[in-house]
C-alpha cells in the first residue's frame, strides 16, 4: 500500500510525458494485442474457410461482446471491491470476494450458456444471420458458448490479479492467450482444416490454458489472497456491491452490442451477407487503431484524474494535449494506410473478389475521418477522468447512439448500401464537432479559476 501512495504522489510530480508513457504503454500493449487476435482469427477464417464464414463471424461479434459484458461486470465489480478491502487490510472479506467472483462467474456463465444455446438460432437471426451465414455463426457460437464459463473465469481472474497488485501477471495472461490463440488458430483452421469451429476452439483452448495458470497462481498458499474452502458461498452484501459497481461497464458494453447488431442488420438488409463480411473486416482494421487510442486514454486517466484532484491544472492540461497528440498521430498513420492501401489490407482477410471490393471500399469509408476520433475519444475520457460523468456519457453516447443509429437508419433509405457506410464517418465527425465546443467551454471555466 505504501508504494500505491508513492505512485499516487508521483502523479503530481514526475514529468507528465514520462508518466503518460509509463501508464499508457502496458494498456496499449494489452489492448492492441487483443485486437491483433481478432485480426488473425478473421484472416484465417476468411482465407481458409471463405467469405460467408467471415460474415458469419461478424454476426457473432456482438454475441461475444454480450458474454464479455457479463464477465466484465463481475470482473470490474469484484476487483474494485477487492482493492478497497485490501486497502483496509480486510483480508477476510477480500478472500470471500475472490471466492464469490469464482462462483458468480460460474453461475452467470452457466446461465448465459443455457439461455443462449436454447435460443441460439432465433438469437442469431436477430443479430442478422441469413440462411447462408447461420450455419457458420451457429457452429462458431456453440463452441464459444460451451466454453463460456471458462471465458468468464479468465476475464474475472485477470481483473482480480490486477486488484491484488499483480498487473504484470494479468498482462502476461493476456499476451499468452493472444499468442496461443494465434498458434492454435493457424493449427486448427489452416492445418487441420477444422473450419470456423477451429477458430472458436482455438480461443477457448487458449483461455482455458491461461485460466489454469491463473488458478494455479491463486492456489499458492503463500499468497495473500488464495483459494480455499468456505469462500465460495455467495454473500448477499458482497454480491450486491459487485453488481452495483459492475452495472456501469455492463451497460456500456450492452450499448456497444446493440449498435453492432443494428449495423449488421442494416448491412444485411442493404448489401447482403457480403456486406456484413466487409463490415466485419473493416471493423477489425478500425479496431486495431482504436484500441491504441483506448490504451492512450487508459494511461491518461490516472494522471489527469490525480492532477485535477490536486488542482494542478497545468499538468492536467499538458497530459490531455499530449494524449490527444499521441492518439491523433497514430490515427493519422492508420488513416494514411487505409486511404493508400485499402485493397492490400483487405487482401489479408480474403481472396474473394466481391468481398475484396466491398471491404476495400468499406475500409476507406470507415477510416475516412478517423483521425478526429482520436481527439473525440481522448476528450470524452478526459471528462470522465475528472469526474464530469454526465458530459462524458453524453459524448460517448453521441458518437454511437445519438448520431450513428439514426443516420444508419435514414441514409440507406436515400443512398442504399453506401448510406450505411457513410453513416460511420459522418457520425464520427458529428460527434467530434460536438466534443470540441464542450472542451472549449470547459477550458473557459477553468481560466476563470
Amino acid at each position, binding site marked *: 500500500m505504501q508504494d500505491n501512495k508513492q505512485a499516487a504522489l508521483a502523479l503530481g510530480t514526475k514529468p507528465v510525458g514520462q508518466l503518460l508513457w509509463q501508464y499508457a504503454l502496458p494498456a496499449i500493449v494489452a489492448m492492441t494485442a487483443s485486437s491483433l487476435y481478432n485480426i488473425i482469427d478473421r484472416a484465417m477464417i476468411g482465407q481458409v474457410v471463405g467469405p460467408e464464414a467471415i460474415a458469419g463471424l461478424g454476426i457473432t461479434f456482438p454475441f461475444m461482446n454480450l458474454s464479455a459484458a457479463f464477465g466484465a461486470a463481475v470482473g*470490474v465489480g469484484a476487483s474494485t471491491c477487492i482493492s478497497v478491502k485490501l486497502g483496509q487490510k480486510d483480508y477476510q472479506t477480500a478472500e470471500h470476494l475472490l471466492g464469490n467472483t469464482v462462483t458468480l462467474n460460474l453461475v452467470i456463465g452457466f446461465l448465459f450458456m443455457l439461455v443462449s444455446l436454447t435460443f441460439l438460432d432465433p438469437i442469431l437471426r436477430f443479430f442478422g444471420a441469413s440462411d447462408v451465414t447461420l450455419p457458420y455463426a451457429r457452429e462458431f457460437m456453440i463452441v464459444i458458448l460451451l466454453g463460456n464459463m471458462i471465458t468468464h473465469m479468465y476475464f474475472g481472474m*485477470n481483473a482480480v490479479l490486477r486488484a491484488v497488485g499483480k498487473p504484470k501477471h494479468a498482462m502476461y495472461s493476456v499476451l499468452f492467450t493472444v499468442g496461443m490463440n494465434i498458434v492454435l488458430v493457424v493449427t486448427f483452421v489452416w492445418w487441420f482444416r477444422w473450419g470456423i469451429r477451429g477458430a472458436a476452439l482455438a480461443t477457448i483452448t487458449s483461455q482455458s490454458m491461461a485460466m489454469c495458470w491463473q488458478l494455479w497462481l491463486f492456489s499458492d498458499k503463500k499468497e495473500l489472497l488464495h483459494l480455499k474452502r468456505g469462500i465460495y458461498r455467495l454473500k448477499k452484501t458482497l454480491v450486491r456491491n459487485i453488481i452495483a459497481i459492475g452495472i456501469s461497464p455492463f451497460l*456500456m458494453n450492452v450499448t456497444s452490442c446493440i449498435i453492432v447488431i443494428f449495423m449488421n442488420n442494416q448491412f444485411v438488409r442493404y448489401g447482403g451477407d457480403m456486406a456484413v463480411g466487409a463490415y466485419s473486416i473493416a471493423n477489425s482494421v478500425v479496431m486495431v487503431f482504436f484500441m491504441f487510442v*483506448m490504451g492512450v486514454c487508459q494511461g491518461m486517466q490516472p494522471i489527469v484524474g490525480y492532477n485535477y*484532484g490536486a*488542482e494542478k491544472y497545468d499538468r492536467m492540461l499538458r497530459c490531455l494535449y499530449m494524449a490527444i497528440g499521441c492518439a491523433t498521430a497514430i490515427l493519422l498513420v492508420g488513416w494514411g494506410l487505409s486511404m493508400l492501401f485499402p485493397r492490400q489490407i483487405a487482401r489479408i482477410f480474403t481472396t474473394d473478389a466481391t468481398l475484396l471490393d466491398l471491404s476495400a471500399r468499406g475500409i476507406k469509408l470507415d477510416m475516412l475521418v478517423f483521425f478526429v476520433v482520436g481527439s473525440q475519444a481522448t476528450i470524452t475520457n478526459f471528462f470522465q477522468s475528472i469526474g464530469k460523468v454526465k458530459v462524458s*456519457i453524453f459524448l460517448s453516447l453521441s458518437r*454511437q447512439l445519438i448520431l450513428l443509429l439514426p443516420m444508419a437508419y435514414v441514409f440507406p433509405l436515400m443512398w442504399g448500401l453506401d448510406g450505411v457506410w457513410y453513416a460511420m464517418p459522418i457520425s464520427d465527425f458529428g460527434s467530434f464537432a460536438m466534443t470540441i465546443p464542450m472542451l472549449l467551454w470547459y477550458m473557459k471555466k477553468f481560466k476563470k479559476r
Partner: protein
Amino acid sequence: MGSGGHDIGRMLALDFQAKYYDRELLNLAAKESGLSEKIFEQNDEKKGFFRGLLNIGAPHMSSSGYKPGMTQETLFQFQSDAIRKAAKEGSCVFVGRCADYILRDFSNTVNIFITASLEYRIEQIMNKQHLDVEAAQKFIEQGEGKRADYYNYYTGKKWGSAESYDLCIDSSKLGLVETEKLIAQFIRKKFDL
C-alpha cells in the same frame, strides 16, 4: 442527521482533550494525498455507483481495463490512511466516515451511534437549514440514504445496526448536554479513567 451528533462529538473532544475531526478530516486527507480539499468535499460520504464508467467500444477489454486511476475508492483509501495516522498520534474524535470500521483493529476505541426521534430531527433540520417540514424530512431521508450507501459499501456492514457500536443513544431523551455527559461517563468506565 439532525440528532446533534456533531455537537456532542465536539463536546466530547473538549472533555477528553482530544482532537476533533469532522470536516477537518477532509483537510487532513488532502494533505496526505496532495489532492485538494475540494475534491474530498465533493465526494464526502457519498458513493455514486454510476460515477465509475468505463469506455464504450472496448468491450473485450473493459475487464482487462487497468485502473490505477483516481476513483472514489482511491479517495477513500487516502482518507482512511489519514484517519489511522491521526489515531496513532493521539486521542481523537472522528465523526462518521466509516472510522469505526477503519479503526477496527485499534483496541482503545469506543463507537457511538447517536440518533433521535424523527420529529425531533425534523425540527432541528428545519431550524438549521431553514426548510419547511416536508423539505426537512426529504433532506434527512436523502442525506441518510447517501450516508448509509457509503458506509455499507465500504464497510460491508449495515449503517446504524447496533452490533457495530458500543453504545447507541437517542439524544432527544436527555438533551444534548446530558447525553454528552452520559457518553463521557461510559467512556471513562470503559477505559477505567
